């Protein structure tokens, strides 16, 4: 299938929402002035939380390690500003629950002094393991939103002998333009990062998929990739969710990732454009991941655009920087389709924060849900080929196993079904609820099994102790009797002695 055919034949799945990317995407990138105080959360990635290694009152430089990775899947955290550690406490997590999580607070000295860095002059002369090690130490995680530690993915790609690296520049979520901006402003960083990742996983080609609603980014990336024929820029039709890895892989390579398999098992690995740029900085400059581009967009914002900000900056500081026209009716971290609703703005930005959306009342309006009319629009829109109406009907009456039988676990929570639903049924919330409940049931089962083992172990131990006590008592009794028997014919002083010994 040629490129032209593919281009003409738009995918049958997905939706095409109004993208709302401009004018924010066209506004030049602004540098956020160093914040007074940053809150650096210890779990900004998938896997174990990092362990703090600094003390309150300690002076740190920008880029200094402040919390180290814990466990196989984890990432370290570095200071995003220079200053003094003022607390190791809790801050509200960017999570729909509004629950707190652990974070290190740093008072900035306003000087942004970098720690001495250790760049690698020629990454292509180094071993792939060395590249992966340095990426892990720099705390690079997937910046598309999944925040999976990149070095773990490199090792997986190397082990499964992945031939193709897919660089995800889809950015299909409406309103967001942070990836667009990084491709327009730093295309050489993205291309170099992609080549370093190719070296790390042993891939022979890199396909950069960019949605065709970003012509400036495509032009900039084409220019930057010109000297490297192995890096191919591939415009893809703008269709939500093109930025989802399974959909992008299918569009670019024609391969379909099986339901229970990972992308690496069909010979491809997907990395986001921002992740590639972060790898470039980690290897070529020795800079750990402490800053990122954040899109600030939505009807409530006075000057929407992209901001280059240190991680750990409070969302309230960012909103004050771009100005608010009105109090936002809804705050969202990420895109409007899959993003996380936030309860308030005293929440720090994290590694996976691609954008902050502040919606005005009109944008935040949610129509009331009506009954399902079984029109089937959701099944046409679902990019995973599922039946959202059937799953939701079962979850509504509490039949979670029934929903599971309709492959609920394959749902990627993209929100296409809820977007097209004429009855405005909150389908994704049904699926998120069911997935959470099923995970909890599984966890409870594991816990019950574990406590059962503990209870059995305790019973066995008590039985053994009782048996041993009884045996010891019997042994002592036998000894005493033997001694008595031996002492009986002997003289009286000896009998007295044994009595004394046994007393």
């Amino acid at each position, binding site marked *: 299938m040629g490129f032209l055919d593919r281009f003409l034949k738009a995918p049958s799945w997905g939706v095409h929402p109004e993208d709302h990317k401009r004018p924010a995407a066209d506004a030049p990138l602004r540098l956020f002035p160093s914040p007074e105080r940053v809150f650096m959360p210890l779990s900004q990635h998938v896997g174990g939380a990092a362990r703090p290694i600094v003390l309150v009152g300690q002076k740190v430089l920008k880029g200094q390690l402040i919390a180290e990775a814990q466990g196989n899947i984890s990432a370290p955290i570095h200071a995003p500003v220079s200053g003094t550690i003022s607390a190791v406490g809790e801050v509200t997590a960017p999570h729909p629950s509004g629950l707190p999580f652990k974070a290190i607070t740093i008072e900035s000295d306003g000087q942004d002094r970098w720690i001495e860095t250790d760049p690698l002059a020629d990454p292509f002369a180094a071993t792939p393991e060395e590249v992966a090690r340095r990426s892990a130490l720099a705390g690079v995680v997937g910046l598309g939103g999944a925040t999976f530690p990149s070095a773990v993915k490199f090792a997986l790609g190397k082990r499964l002998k992945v031939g193709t690296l897919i660089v995800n520049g889809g950015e299909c979520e409406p309103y967001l333009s942070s990836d667009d901006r990084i491709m327009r402003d730093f295309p050489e960083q993205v291309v170099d990062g992609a080549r370093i990742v190719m070296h790390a996983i042993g891939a022979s080609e890199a396909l950069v998929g960019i949605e065709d609603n970003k012509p400036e980014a495509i032009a900039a990336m084409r220019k930057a990739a010109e000297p490297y024929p192995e890096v191919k820029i591939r415009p893809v039709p703008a269709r939500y969710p093109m930025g989802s890895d399974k959909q992008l892989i299918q569009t670019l390579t024609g391969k379909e990732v099986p339901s229970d398999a990972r992308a690496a098992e069909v010979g491809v690995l997907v990395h986001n454009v921002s992740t590639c740029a972060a790898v470039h900085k980690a290897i070529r400059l020795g800079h750990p991941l402490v800053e990122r581009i954040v899109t600030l967009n939505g009807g409530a914002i006075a000057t929407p655009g992209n901001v280059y900000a240190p991680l750990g900056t409070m969302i309230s500081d960012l909103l004050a920087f771009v100005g608010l026209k009105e109090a936002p009716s809804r705050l969202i971290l990420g895109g409007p389709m899959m993003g996380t609703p936030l309860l308030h703005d005293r929440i720090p930005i994290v590694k996976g924060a691609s954008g902050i959306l502040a919606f005005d009342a009109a944008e935040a309006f949610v129509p009331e849900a009506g009954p399902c009319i079984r029109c089937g629009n959701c099944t046409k829109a679902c990019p995973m080929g599922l039946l959202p109406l059937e799953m939701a009907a079962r979850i509504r009456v509490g039949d979670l196993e029934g929903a599971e039988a309709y492959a609920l676990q394959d749902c990627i929570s993209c929100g296409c079904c809820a977007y097209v639903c004429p009855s405005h049924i909150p389908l994704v919330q049904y699926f998120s609820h069911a997935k959470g409940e099923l995970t909890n049931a599984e966890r409870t089962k594991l816990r*019950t099994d574990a*406590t059962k083992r503990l209870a059995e172990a305790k019973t066995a131990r008590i039985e053994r102790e009782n048996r041993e006590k009884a045996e010891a008592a019997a042994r002592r009794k036998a000894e005493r009797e033997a001694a008595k028997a031996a002492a009986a014919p002997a003289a009286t002083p000896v009998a007295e002695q044994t009595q004394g010994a046994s007393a």
Partner: protein
Amino acid sequence: MLMSVGSLAAMGLALGSVLGVASRYLAVEENPIEAELQAMLPGSQCGQCGYVGCAQAAAALAKGEAPVTLCPPGGKATAEALAAKLGVKVDLSKVSDSGPQIAEVTEEICIGCCRCMKVCPTDAIIGAAKQIHNVIREACTGCSSCVDVCPTEALGMAPIPVTLQHWTWPKPASAHS
């Protein structure tokens, strides 16, 4: 005519008596479902259900004398599994009300008497003589045996704290149900 009626009646009588004898002499002593039910229960023998242990509770369940919601440490998941096994309908709204609970030591009043450690069925309490005791959350089944033996009321039951890992989206409120 008479011949066929007579032979059928004789056959019925003979086969019926065989069945009657078989039901008396070849009867299964124990209900086989008991073992399966017991395997589903937590096995911590805590006695919160009112029976001596999990085996007795399973026997009562098999006879239909106890409701499937009898096991507080097992919670909703166990009640659901038991209901599915026994083929009965169950109203789970009451089970989720209290929510799973675990023991908690108030450190200021603990005198380190070691009594709670001894009764804990899963060894979930750590401590030593005259040292403050503590509960290992992951191992506690919420059986509350320790609460009864504590001489200073330092032990109490508290709901399992909700963390980011355990939080789940609520079910959407549907106006059209």
